[in-house]
């Protein structure tokens, strides 16, 4: 036999809270009046006076102004006013500044580039090496005594020609595009890079023959 649930009353709840027990199932919950007698339901206060209208307008005005300003700041933030990056294309001076079998650190700090004049595959060439270690992006140091680049983070080592030979670096340092400008000085273009493992070091744009 199924128990008829419509007439079960929750008397215990009524005892505890003082609210008269409601017969469960006899009424649609939406129709029940949850208010105790004597109270009035919530009503939005009417905008009866001009003072209230003023404060409402002022509040929304401040809120809107703050919102618009923050959106404006966000948009402004996307367009930095002063580019702090050094020029991607820069002149490195006359080729005679870089004698044979040297590594120049003159542009390491300003442009993150080493200008090397080294022998590579039987040819004396000038090329621009990136100062970013191909392992995890630290800046290696040029050790003149050992004639190698050595990374302080995980001990990767590179020969003066940029080839990796010790430590975990998986590939040689990257070269940048280099050419002789109209005024006869070396121009380095960092927007184009050349990776040895992709065979790009054969590209004549990646080096200039040393004199």
């Amino acid at each position, binding site marked *: 036999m199924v128990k008829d649930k419509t007439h079960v009353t929750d008397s215990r709840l009524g005892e505890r809270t003082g609210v008269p027990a409601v017969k469960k199932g006899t009424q649609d919950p939406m129709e029940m009046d949850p208010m105790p007698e004597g109270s009035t339901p919530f009503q939005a206060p009417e905008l009866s006076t001009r003072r209230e209208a003023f404060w409402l307008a002022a509040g929304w005005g401040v809120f809107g102004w703050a919102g618009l300003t923050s959106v404006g700041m966000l948009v402004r933030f996307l367009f930095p006013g002063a580019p702090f990056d050094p020029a991607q294309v820069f002149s490195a001076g006359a080729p005679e500044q870089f004698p044979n079998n040297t590594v120049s650190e003159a542009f390491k700090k300003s442009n993150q580039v080493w200008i090397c004049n080294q022998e590579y595959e039987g040819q004396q060439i000038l090329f621009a090496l990136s*100062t970013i270690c191909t392992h995890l992006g630290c*800046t290696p*140091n040029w*050790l003149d*005594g050992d004639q190698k680049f050595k990374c*302080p983070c995980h*001990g990767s080592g590179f020969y003066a020609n940029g080839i990796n*030979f*010790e430590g*975990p670096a998986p590939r040689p340092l990257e070269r940048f595009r280099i050419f002789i400008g109209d005024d006869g000085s070396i121009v380095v273009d960092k927007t184009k890079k050349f990776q040895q493992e992709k065979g790009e070091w054969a590209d004549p744009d990646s080096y200039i023959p040393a004199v």
Partner: protein
Amino acid sequence: MDNVLAFLRWIVTEAAAPKLLVPLVFVALILTLKYYRVVTKPRVAGPIGLLIVVFLVGSCFDANFRKIITKADNIPIILLLFSVFFLVWLSLRRAALNDEAAEKGEPPLEARFKRETVLVWPDLVMIELIVIVGLTALLAFWAVGLPAPLEEPASAALTPNPSKAPWYFLGLQEMLVYYDPWYAGVVLPTMIVVGLMAIPYIDTNPKGNGYYTLVERKFAISVFLIGFIVFWIALITIGTFLRGPNWNFFGPYDYWDVHMSVPLKNINISEIFWVKMLKQGMPEAWYVRELPGIVMVIAFVMIGPLLLAKTVLKKLFKQLDIVRFSVVVTLLLFMISLPAKMLGRWLFNLKYVVYIPEYFINL
């Protein structure tokens, strides 16, 4: 006397090199686990701990050693070593006592204290308050006495030499010396986390719940301690105290010379195979060139599990179902790949087993 000191220095310097220190810690840990009932006895473990203190204090007469040890950054690592030593001893000691009791048919130590409940107010709350006040005072004094060393502003053109990760990442940094960044920096840490998360699913052994024991959970505890002590704590120690400028290894008594030159040339398996063994040039195509390394990796992945199932994990293979066993073995293979590569580097100057820079795949 000077000769004895020089000899001791030589021994310590040799033993501290990663190629000896990591295997030594491993062997010491295995021996400890094997003879844990003897080793953890206070009259054995006490002198060992005392020996470590004597070594540290005695070595502080050396200026170079003192300089590294007393760096504000490094003092917590010394405390870490002592706390690890003490906690491993404590757990293994109580495991030894419990295991001996179990053999006599007695309940474990923990079951003999009937302490299912604690008194909270005011007992526990008071204790907590005292601990909070004490630790806050300790931190305040520490911060005043050993202020955190600040360095110069960061510069893209200058990486500090040596450039060290926070101490808790120095184990990872040491791993990065041996493996490609995506493997040592992404795959292995992920596998460590995944492996730790998988423990509740693969470890179905109901024993050892609420009391210390080693006999009943030998495999689980051994694997965890090897991973934690050898591949985490030991590597942090090496990274903190023994890695100097240019990430070169320096003995505990060596001066950290920025200009020290270490001749080193790492070579790939392909070069060992084609150039050194077959005395010919490297093949052009990468899949021919890297074939020896690829075969080695496949052999490691395919034969490794079978070998483990037949030897070290024989018992586990019978206990676990095939899915759980596969997961355990896969995780173990990842774990073993680290010391395998380290040994390769130390013994053969190995750089990469598989080296395909064309597709950024290096193992």
